């Protein structure tokens, strides 16, 4: 998904760094990475360590980091939108205007990244960036520990016990789609997008599944 962006900026002092939040590890991530054949690094994060460090709750989220290693845009939705909620439940087709709007948002996000790389625009002042940092609560920190244990148990083949800890992680941190979808049953296409997923999305009501960043074109 980021190959064009990375290519278009390859003469700049810039890189995409993509991280798969995938407890299944290399074997589940490999087909996706090989199909994309990216020229930027693609890393595998079995324990969702990155999400814990940065307070990330969904994919894809992006963090912009400057040359000094400073966060200039904290985690935010990276080019995805809630238009999928208008998908036909049977055919999975999206109304054409929704598909067009979704594509426009994705393009606007890519343009914003390019703009930042070339001009520094859209980097937030430290006070603004700080105010946009996700709040890390004791419940979330405990959720991370439960998730880590659940994933370890799952990888050790102790699925039933693993589910207890993965469920506890979701209970403690219900806003983490990462936790919930990683634990959930997969549908026939390998996505955690079965009926329970759609029920959870419906339960959001007016809240966004993919909250939109404060950038031009959004």
């Amino acid at each position: 998904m980021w190959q064009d962006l990375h290519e278009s900026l390859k003469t700049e002092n810039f890189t995409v760094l993509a991280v798969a939040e995938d407890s299944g590890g290399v074997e589940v991530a490999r087909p996706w990475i090989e199909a994309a054949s990216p020229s930027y690094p693609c890393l595998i994060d079995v324990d969702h360590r990155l999400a814990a460090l940065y307070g990330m709750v969904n994919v894809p989220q992006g963090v912009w980091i400057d040359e000094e290693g400073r966060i200039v845009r904290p985690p935010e939705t990276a080019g995805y939108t809630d238009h999928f909620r208008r998908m036909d439940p049977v055919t999975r087709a999206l109304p054409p205007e929704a598909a067009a709007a979704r594509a426009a948002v994705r393009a606007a996000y890519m343009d914003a990244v390019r703009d930042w790389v070339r001009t520094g625009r859209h980097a937030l002042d430290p006070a603004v960036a700080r105010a946009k940092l996700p709040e890390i609560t004791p419940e979330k920190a405990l959720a991370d520990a439960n998730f880590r244990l659940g994933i370890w148990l799952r990888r050790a083949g102790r699925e039933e016990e693993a589910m207890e800890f993965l469920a506890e992680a979701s209970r403690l941190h219900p806003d983490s789609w990462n936790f919930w979808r990683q634990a959930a049953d997969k549908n026939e296409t390998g996505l955690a997008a079965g009926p329970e997923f759609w029920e959870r999305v419906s339960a959001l009501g007016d809240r966004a599944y993919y909250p939109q960043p404060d950038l031009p074109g959004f």
Partner: protein
Amino acid sequence: MAVVLTESGAFTIAAKDGLYVSAADAETVTGWALKPEGMCRDELCVPLASAARRGGAVDLAAFWRKLGNPVVSDRGGEVWVLGTGAESRADALAGLAAPDFSLPDLDGEMHTLSALRGKKVFLTTWASW
């Protein structure tokens, strides 16, 4: 034996009665050393409750909770996670220095965020699910 999962990795160490471990193992796993005044790292010492110190052994779970960190274990008390507390996480982010990490690529080669210092980085997540 117990498996202890921390930020720095997984350790298999001898443990009894929960997570009472030798002082040497406690230091290997956490970086904190047992001294007469408590558990110490650099100049800082944290007193231990008398129940958390038995002979030469330390109740690592009790110590870790005392630091304000979460501790979770499996049903059998054989696998433990010594997590990172909310305050540490939030403090690390509040300075806006991007928290560092090392993760493997498909070939198992490790990549470290801080090695990219000097470049702008668009760090992004995805997943197969």
